[in-house]
């Protein structure tokens, strides 16, 4: 995964020994801005949900001991509901939260995002930890459908709009 066309391309590590998924991505913005985009519901709504689905945020109280719940709604009305708590929100630095898909309430992942200041740019490292290798693999598999369907359509539009 070393040759890429986009210089900020996402790096992924899915360790064969640990039930974790690590994503590393750099952004052309300060940790302050990236942190806002991760914590202000109106901004979160603009990027977190899959393209095909409408994202409804019931609550997004991104501070230590806060909680969140959001729904992805399909065109046929099907809802996918997610919720969790913010264990620790340290401004511009680190967010630790739980994540659960409500249809599988016993499945909980612990998600840590760190924001590293690269001098006006930011490196975000997100680590998801679950309790079994099977749960980790299911997480990887869950990305399949939307990944195929959407491809890069939406970001092509976004990038075109930015020029």
């Amino acid at each position: 995964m070393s040759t890429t066309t986009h210089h900020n391309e996402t790096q992924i590590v899915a360790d064969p020994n640990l039930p974790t998924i690590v994503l590393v991505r750099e952004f052309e913005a300060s940790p302050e801005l990236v942190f806002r985009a991760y914590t202000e519901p109106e901004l979160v709504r603009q990027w977190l949900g899959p393209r095909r689905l409408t994202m409804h945020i019931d609550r997004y109280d991104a501070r230590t001991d806060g909680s969140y719940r959001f729904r992805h709604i399909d065109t046929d009305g099907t809802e996918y509901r997610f919720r969790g708590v913010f264990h620790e929100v340290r401004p511009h630095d680190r967010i630790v939260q739980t994540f659960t898909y409500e249809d599988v309430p016993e499945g909980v992942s612990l998600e840590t995002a760190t924001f590293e200041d690269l001098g006006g740019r930011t490196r975000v490292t997100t680590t998801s930890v679950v309790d079994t290798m099977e749960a980790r693999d299911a997480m990887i598999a869950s990305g399949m459908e939307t990944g195929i369907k959407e491809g890069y359509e939406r970001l092509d539009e976004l990038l075109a709009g930015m020029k």
Partner: protein
Amino acid sequence: MTEDRLSQVFAALADPTRRDIVARLASADATVNELAEPYDVSVQAVSKHIRVLEDAGLVSRTRDAQRRPCHLEAEVFDLMTKWIERYRQEAEERFRRLDAVLERMKGEVSDTETRTEGQAS
């Protein structure tokens, strides 16, 4: 490849001895006896590891009664790599939307505030 199958592959590779076996089969086919040689375990134990790898579709054994060498099914690794790559691409797509959000935010910040960018790198 189904989710169960993928889980089986990951589970099979979670064991260090099995990963070592896979690494050795990557260079050449080998019999269970040959594979067992460097380890301080019984041929039966290695045979059990091979069965796990076989069930996961990572290794096949020809039905040659005398030798039955183990063969690595390399295409399974390609499939796994593809699944992980798809997951990565989905994350990348999400992060490019975040890129766009950040660009818009920068525009708003410079509209409302005086930007100070005097820092030397």
